[in-house]
């Protein structure tokens, strides 16, 4: 076996208007975990898609096990032993686990009839090799996100992959699920599989990888051994400057209570939740994925209907609102999925920004375009959003810039309370700290802020107070010195134990 399993040389890929990859060269050794990092839109996914046969590079060569190859298509890549595990999972929910593992490559006889027994046997073997706790006949749609990811990883076993690429695999995993994933990755590594690992979470990068390659604007900035580098160096390579403070906390000057929730329930998603938040306060909502935090804030905002509970807005009790009423009161919700819940992708930034506040931007129902333009321009420069103009469809923007428009659309009407659901998921370190700064700034302007995050350092870093949620209930509340990682882990895992033992 050579010491390089896969090597790309001078790959260039251009999309209309963008040079996504510019003479990128890069190699993967067997048995290493190679990190690929860079800002949003740096070209990481594009590079990996080129390896997996989803994009055809304009120029450049790919060498696999020493030979120059052409990757004809995704199945070809998979057959050769190069497996890409997507940012968005690539599974068919209605099909079984076994069928998904071998999706598109099912064993059949000459007439296209499935060899079901063989399929099942091979799939079972792959699942067992990974130690998955489910069988091959389960419908994939009924599995949790983490388990669905296991199904994808099982493809590595099934196709005896030599290269496995993970594109932001932990974005929707809990900590324990992440540990499980790392365990699996180490298993693959031990068997000599070369692994590419893309992530924006630096702690993960330093935890599991052996080498780091940094991409910036489609160009390789360099490759370094993980042992020989540190966060500052990597950040500088990524964004051209270092970030001195990771987390800025707003000054703790609290005003009057803005929102109080008493006994709010929406069974079976969450039950009997009570808390309050004040002007100038950042309230963190920590929990594992699936704890019900998103559902909780969606219910407060009115997108979901609660079945019990009271809401108090500025000390006065209110009916459970509709989203319209919430917005009019001064509540804002930055939802967790910007593509599905946050933006109308074919609209431009201007129209997206005014969408929640049509009444403010109109007189007797007629839209006031000048007002819209003014606000658009204001936030374009305030948040330094990269867009060609007010009507460029936001679908053409990179993820980070999209997220900024989501923020703009909620900030422009001066809310009293802003709820941010996973505001930094999938966002590069540079933009991430910009968002952290923004949170502090908003609180200092007197807004009440609720931040949902699954990242413990983030939630501890930005909040004045943290609620820990587990299995649909608030299990603990921490403030000041009690806000430590140990306490949080303790709170959410203790609450889980009896359930796990069931």
């Amino acid at each position, binding site marked *: 076996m050579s010491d390089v399993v896969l090597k790309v040389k001078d790959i260039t890929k251009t999309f209309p208007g963008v040079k996504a990859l510019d003479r990128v060269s890069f190699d993967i050794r067997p048995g290493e975990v190679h990190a690929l990092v860079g800002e949003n839109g740096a070209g990481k996914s594009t590079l990996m898609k080129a390896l*997996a046969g*989803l994009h055809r590079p304009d120029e450049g060569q790919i060498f696999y096990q020493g030979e120059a190859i052409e990757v004809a*298509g*995704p*199945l*070809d890549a*998979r057959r050769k032993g190069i497996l*890409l595990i*997507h940012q*968005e*999972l*690539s*599974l*068919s*929910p*209605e*099909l079984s686990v076994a*069928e998904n593992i071998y*999706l*598109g*490559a*099912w064993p*059949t006889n000459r*007439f*296209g*009839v*499935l060899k*079901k027994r063989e399929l099942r046997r091979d799939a079972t073997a792959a699942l067992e090799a990974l130690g998955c706790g489910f069988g091959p006949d*389960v*419908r994939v*749609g*009924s*599995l949790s*996100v983490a388990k*669905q990811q296991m199904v994808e990883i099982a493809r590595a076993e099934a196709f005896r992959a030599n290269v496995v690429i993970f594109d932001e695999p932990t974005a929707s995993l809990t900590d324990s699920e992440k540990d499980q994933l790392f365990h699996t990755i180490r298993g693959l590594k031990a068997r000599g599989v070369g692994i590419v690992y893309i992530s924006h979470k630096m702690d993960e990068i330093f935890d599991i990888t052996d080498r780091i390659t940094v991409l910036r604007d489609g160009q390789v900035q360099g490759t370094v051994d993980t042992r020989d580098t540190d966060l500052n160096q990597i950040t500088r390579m990524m964004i051209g400057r270092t970030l001195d403070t990771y987390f800025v906390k707003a000054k703790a000057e609290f005003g009057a209570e803005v929102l109080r929730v008493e006994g709010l329930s929406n069974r*079976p998603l969450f039950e009997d939740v009570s808390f309050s938040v004040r002007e100038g306060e950042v309230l963190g909502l920590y929990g594992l994925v699936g704890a019900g935090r998103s559902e909780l804030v969606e219910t407060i905002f009115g997108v979901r209907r609660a079945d019990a509970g009271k809401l108090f807005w500025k000390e006065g009790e209110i009916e459970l609102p509709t989203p319209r009423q919430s917005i009019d009161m001064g509540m804002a919700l930055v939802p967790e999925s910007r593509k599905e819940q946050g933006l109308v992708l074919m609209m431009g930034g201007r129209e997206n920004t005014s969408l929640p506040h049509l009444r403010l931007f109109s007189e007797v129902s007629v839209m006031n375009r000048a007002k819209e333009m003014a606000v658009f321009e204001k936030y374009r420069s305030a948040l330094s959003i990269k867009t060609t103009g007010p009507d460029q469809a936001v679908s053409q923007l990179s993820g980070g810039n999209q997220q900024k428009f989501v923020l703009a659309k909620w900030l422009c009407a001066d809310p009293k309370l802003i709820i941010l659901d996973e505001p930094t998921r999938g966002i590069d370190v540079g933009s991430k700290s910009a968002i952290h700064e923004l949170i502090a700034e908003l609180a200092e302007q007197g807004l009440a802020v609720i931040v949902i995050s699954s990242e413990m350092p983030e939630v501890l870093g930005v909040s004045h107070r943290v609620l820990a949620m587990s299995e649909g209930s608030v299990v603990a509340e921490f403030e000041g010195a009690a806000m430590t990682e140990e306490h949080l882990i303790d709170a959410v895992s203790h609450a889980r134990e009896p359930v796990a033992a069931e």
Partner: protein
Amino acid sequence: MSHTSTVTTDRSPALAALSWLLRNHIWVFLALTIIVFSLASPYFLTLNNLGNILTQGAFIGILAIGMTMVMIDGEIDLSVGAVLALASALAIGLQDHMGVWPAVFLGLMSGAALGFLNGSLVALSGMHSFIVTLGGLIGIRGLVFVYTGENALMVPDFSYTEIPEIYLGPVSLTAIIFFGLALLFQWVLSSTRHGRETYAVGDNIEAAHDAGINVKRHKIINFTLCGTLAAVCGILLSMRLGTAEPNAGRIWELWTIIAVVLGGTRLQGGFGSLWMTIGGVLTLAVLRNGLRLLNTPNYVELMVMGSVLILALVLDKILNRREAT
């Protein structure tokens, strides 16, 4: 593209039965209509009439088989009515020149060719199949008239109409062909590569594409199948009528879609089966036959069909919502 639904864990038999009923409520619906009509009309539950229902349902049924495949793919085919008219015209019109069976074969091929055309246009252009086949619905009917020159074509030899007059008890050959084809394609759906691809494509087309499934070729095959089945239907119809009507099959595509949707196949694709479609087809046939036996005026029939369809949708909605939570 991820769906959320409850984890399937072991449940009590009663719950399992309930869940089966919820997933297959079309059969409950069918049973109900049968009970109502057998109480209302003394002629309904005669062997002869039940046989008629099967035969009458078989035509929409054969169309519905192809439509189910296309709809699981997440597409739709509005041109089946026109395709069946063309196939039936060719099957009869060509008999003079080449004899019965070659004519029938060419009729079949015309359906396959038009299905292939529809599929290719959908796959190559990326247009919505609704648009492509809406065009086909208009244009293929034009082809029928070009070929027939407006006249209904009659078979030269009426023994052609006796071909489907083979009965197994009260069940006609037409009905047997329908059930045979339905079983065959149910097997295709559940046990062949093509069938599983159908679900994969309709369910998550990106994943299917990334897995190396040739989505375009796959869709073309399903449209071709749908066209061919429409031709089968047209040929059986020409045998039943002894003539090829240029207007045959008008608005049948609507009845077909209704039958498939009644069965519970998801319009967005990814979910459905021919068992359910058979249920939908039979329910529709029973309703139409029963209303005729009860001597209801035409407008009542139209209004009842409309209401039943909406009712079925509402029921589906309520049941699925319960299942989802």
